């Protein structure tokens, strides 16, 4: 089956001053997102994660300029030949700071903004807004001002506004990075509920969030994908992740420490439940 998103050998450099050599932010990235997949993208600050996200709706390079090589195909459309406005109906991107995206005075107007700009009939807009707000558990707050909501609620408004465009592909760029633990839980639960109907790329530093959620994890470093696999395969490389400035799930680090001290690869758990199951069988020394 053709992947929904296919990135082939993508190189990108932001515009440089005349006479200055381009600084490649992406250096030969290959990426496929298949229907219904949840893919996690990890990487240190400056690895190129957000640039890659923006390449998935054509904003990079259409809005940013700069130099580009390679291809990004979205549902068979070449991202260089189709306007961002068109690609944005296929790929919805949610950013870290939702308040910078808000333009309207009520939650429902915010969520209706995208569909209105698509020129949809009023009844269709209303139906989409209600659906998109319910999907993130915010229908009760539809008449409130986004400015007066908590961080977790604001981020869910931002997700809802993207959902109302009905994209099949969701790209979430560090959606929980500025939230407190309560907001983080709310947003991750909302994202979980979306997986059955969407293909999701979740960009995050939070390996704990990916451990029980992602089908695949990719690690980006200096513009290149340097690790790829299911969460267990990626997170068991504790030392490699550390070298890349990343923090594996803490429970996985614990398994790694036990294995190292025992001199054998005995434990492969990544979460609390698996760890209890494995460790309760140990005998008192």
């Amino acid at each position: 089956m053709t992947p929904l998103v296919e990135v082939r050998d993508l190189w990108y450099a932001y515009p440089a001053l005349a006479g200055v050599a381009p600084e490649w932010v992406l250096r030969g990235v290959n990426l496929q997102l298949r229907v219904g997949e949840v893919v996690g993208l990890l990487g240190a600050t400056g690895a190129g994660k957000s640039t890659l996200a923006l390449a998935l709706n054509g904003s990079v390079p259409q809005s940013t300029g700069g130099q580009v090589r390679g291809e990004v195909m979205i549902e068979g459309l070449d991202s260089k030949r189709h306007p961002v406005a068109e690609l944005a109906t296929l790929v919805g991107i949610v950013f870290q700071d939702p308040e910078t995206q808000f333009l309207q005075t009520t939650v429902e107007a915010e969520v209706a903004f995208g569909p209105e700009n698509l020129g949809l009939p009023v009844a269709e807009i209303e139906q989409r807004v209600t659906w998109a707000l319910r999907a993130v558990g915010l229908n009760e707050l539809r008449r409130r001002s986004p400015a007066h909501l908590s961080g977790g609620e604001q981020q869910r408004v931002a997700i809802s506004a993207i959902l109302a465009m009905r994209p099949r592909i969701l790209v979430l760029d560090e959606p929980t990075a500025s939230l407190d633990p309560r907001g983080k839980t709310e947003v991750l639960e909302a994202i979980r509920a979306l997986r059955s109907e969407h293909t999701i790329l979740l960009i995050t530093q939070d390996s704990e969030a990916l451990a029980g959620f992602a089908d695949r994890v990719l690690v980006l470093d200096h513009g290149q994908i340097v690790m790829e696999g299911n969460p267990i395969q990626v997170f068991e490389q504790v030392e490699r992740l550390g070298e890349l400035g990343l923090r594996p799930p803490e429970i996985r680090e614990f398994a790694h420490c036990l294995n190292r001290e025992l001199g054998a690869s005995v434990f492969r758990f990544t979460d609390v439940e698996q760890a209890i199951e494995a460790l309760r069988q140990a005998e008192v020394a």
Partner: protein
Amino acid sequence: MIQAPRLEAIDLWFGYAPERPALRGADLVVEPGEFLALVGQNGSGKSTLAKHLNGLLRPARGQVRLDGEDISGLSTGRLARQVGYVFQNPDHQLFSPSVEQELGLGPRYLGLTPAEVEDHVQGGLQSFGLQSIAQRGPGTLSFGLRRKVSIAAVATLRPPVFILDEPTTGLDWGSAAQLMDHFTELNLQGHSVILITHDMRLVVRYASRVAVMSEGRTVGSGTPVEIFRQPELLQSTRLEPPPIVQLVQRLASSGVEIEGLTVAAACRSFLAGYRVKLG
């Protein structure tokens, strides 16, 4: 060694809007040389309380004392020399056309000689690895780098007390650990550090005491172990201990008794007490 002052907030009341007070009788003591974590949900009053400790905000009621002296008579400038505040959003404190000038701003404002200012600036560039971007405008840098510059700008002043308001947001773990190690070093030299954060893994690794805030009041205080042993407090303030602490607690109810707040400690404790069948 630096001798940091003792800071004390007593029954602070403050509201950005009169009908919704952000602080409702908050108390806090910061002992000289302490590494204190201030935790709680967004809106619980952490930043508001911390901003009272260096006079950025003045209370409607209550008192802040610096070495026993009421600070209401002290100027913000004089307080800034004692208590440095690193803002949550770096863009709220970066104004200069270059990183180098940004780092010199505070020392110049404190009236240091040009030679001393230069010393502070070079020291700051070096300790935070910013030499290569000394001439860049802060506005052209990534969030992670702007974050580092904003911290370096306060660190160059070497105030006896540092308040770090969510300093690691937007930083990867490698940069976050490097940053916190820097402040651990300053703490060992006698500086007090007040760390506002949601990251319990940082709290466990760096703080010796935790103060918990909820709805404008301080509702708990103790070592990380003491705080994580209070399920009701954790529930009511929606704090979540780090995964390894949750595992240690859950293992206890399965009859496996180990201790430790960090991976290394829990690992040692398990291997000392239990035998694992290999193969």
